[in-house]
């Protein structure tokens, strides 16, 4: 909150994001049901972090919490989201918060969502965006928009004068990225960027994300239910289940040697083009929703092949082992690693 960095400074030094002890709860029937529960994680500056989990795991809620935009009646009941050069986003309100959304963090919606006003052309909405953030040089803004659009392989003149319904799914997604980057945001959050796109658009959108991330030196968070997408893009991977981070580490490491039984389940459920379809096994059971999340013990134990008696009693603490963090009694036992609390985890990661 101290100072707004100029665009040039942002380019040179990507900002880190530190989420610590974040809990988002939804009140229901006199109780508070946590959709995100005591989550701590860091987005390393200049890297792509992938966040995977089934629907209902709280990953979209977490992403909205990064923008301090938790949907009502949800409430942030604990924790902070610290962004370099901005401060704790969760303590911002009103116009202070508004000025961070856009110039500070860019948010890209799911491809299946209509993130554009159906009654205005893309160009006019880009101008609205610029005016809302006090941009005086609208000509320059449009020039930058044109560059970004063309950089993504689209016809800028056509796109700027198009309405939302005149764009295809892949084009919309690219336009969404233009909106997120137009004001030189240093942190980019993408929620299911390729879901609902056909294979070819999917590949090209992934390619674009990689390129703009590298060219603009961003700190990027990609949220997906598809481990394949995250594996393709992310330097680091965070696995969420029932509102908790169950495993976190280098993407390559996680794909090669998953520790948490849930991560293993996700990997096993992934069909591979070259592999035998028989080998793809679906995870048994269904992910819990807010009401059915176990209140005590490990949230995964009901679907876990390795569940032990202790899992029903207490929530597994984070275990740190070789740059990896996971929360599982069984895996911790076999790894022989030390248990660590939240405070240590933060220091370690």
């Amino acid at each position: 909150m101290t100072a707004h960095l100029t665009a040039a400074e942002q380019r040179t030094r990507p900002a880190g994001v530190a989420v610590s002890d974040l809990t988002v709860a939804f009140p229901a029937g006199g109780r508070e049901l946590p959709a995100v529960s005591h989550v701590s994680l860091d987005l390393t500056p200049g890297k792509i972090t992938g966040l995977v989990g089934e629907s209902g795991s709280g990953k979209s809620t977490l992403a909205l919490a990064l923008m301090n935009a938790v949907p009502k009646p949800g409430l942030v009941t604990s924790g902070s989201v610290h962004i370099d050069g901005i401060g704790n986003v969760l303590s911002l309100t009103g116009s202070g918060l508004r000025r961070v959304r856009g110039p500070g963090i860019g948010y890209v919606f799911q491809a299946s969502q209509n993130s554009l006003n159906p009654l205005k052309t893309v160009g006019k909405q880009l101008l609205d965006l610029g005016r809302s953030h006090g941009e005086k040089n609208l000509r320059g803004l449009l020039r930058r928009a044109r560059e970004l659009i063309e950089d993504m392989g689209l016809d800028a003149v056509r796109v700027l004068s198009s309405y939302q319904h005149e764009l295809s799914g892949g084009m919309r997604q690219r336009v969404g990225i233009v909106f997120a980057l137009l004001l030189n945001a240093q942190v980019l959050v993408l929620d299911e960027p390729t879901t609902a796109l056909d294979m070819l658009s999917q590949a090209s959108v992934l390619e674009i994300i990689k390129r703009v991330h590298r060219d603009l030196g961003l700190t990027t968070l990609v949220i997906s239910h598809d481990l394949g997408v995250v594996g393709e893009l992310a330097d680091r991977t965070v696995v969420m289940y029932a509102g908790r981070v169950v495993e976190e580490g280098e993407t390559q490491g996680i794909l090669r040697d998953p520790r948490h039984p849930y991560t293993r389940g996700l990997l096993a459920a992934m069909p591979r083009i070259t592999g035998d379809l028989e080998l793809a096994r679906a995870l048994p059971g269904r992910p819990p929703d807010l009401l059915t999340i176990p209140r005590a013990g490990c949230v995964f134990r009901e679907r876990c092949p390795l569940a032990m008696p202790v899992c029903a009693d207490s929530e597994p603490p984070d275990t740190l082992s070789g740059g990896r963090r996971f929360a599982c009694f069984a895996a911790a036992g076999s790894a022989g690693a030390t248990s660590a609390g939240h405070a240590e985890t933060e220091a370690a990661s």
Partner: protein
Amino acid sequence: MTAIIPLLPEEAGAATAPVRRRRRGRWRLLLRTPGRVFGFAVIALFTLMAIIGPYLYPRNLPIDPSAIYAGPSLAHPLGTDFEGTDVLALIVTGARYVLLSAVIAAAVTIAIGTAAGLASGYYRGLADSSIMRVTDFVLTIPGFPLLIVLSTVWDFGSPYSMGLVLGIVGWGGLARAVRSQTLSLRERSFLEAARGLGLPGRHIIWREILPNVAPYIAMNLLLSITGAIYAEVGLFFLGVVPFNTSNWGVMLNIAVFSAGAVTSPQALTYLLSPLICILLLTLAIVLLLNAVDEWFNPRLREI
């Protein structure tokens, strides 16, 4: 977005009660709030009036030239009219015509509207375009002026003929709603599967589509009953239909245009009685609409 859906307020609220559908629970839902109990009571009362009302009084209600426009008294709780007839008796005996024709009108509306909507939505093509042309035409002709014009040739004396005409004039909106609903259902996977299995169209329409458009039909049933009541009472009130029956509209007409009740307080109860009956019925139906909405929409319950 998927992750946010389970957190919508409706669902979070509904979650405190078992979400499973239970028949008995549904019935209880109709009487859950005092408002709905009131609505039911009012409708039950008027229905009773319509059924047994005419048997409670002699066929020709007694007149009393010595008590014209009398105020409320023990003998005449709602006062008397221009001939000294008891207003309460007029209200009670008049209910049958009003309610019977409204129910017939609603039945005709539902029958034509549902059939036209289902047929044009399901078979599409030529059937659709020709049915929709007719529907557009019916919707465009202003209904009430048309009724007034028709009153010059059509005998509205019996509730059956009144109901029939009201129904024939009023089915356009329902047909459109059912059609668009059918069109969207048609594209759903379970119907594509049913068609793929080679199930006959009749089966799909009756077993798969009709239950899914039932909410619209139920809402429209209530709405067309109220609509029909207003239209028929309105016709009588304007005096374009010969007064060969006694009903609320006739009472209003005499009160306003003959007795000058609006400018003088002498016929106050005579004026207010039919008005209040109409208001009560309206209120009761508005209260129940909400219950019908919840009946078919489990997501709305328990808010």
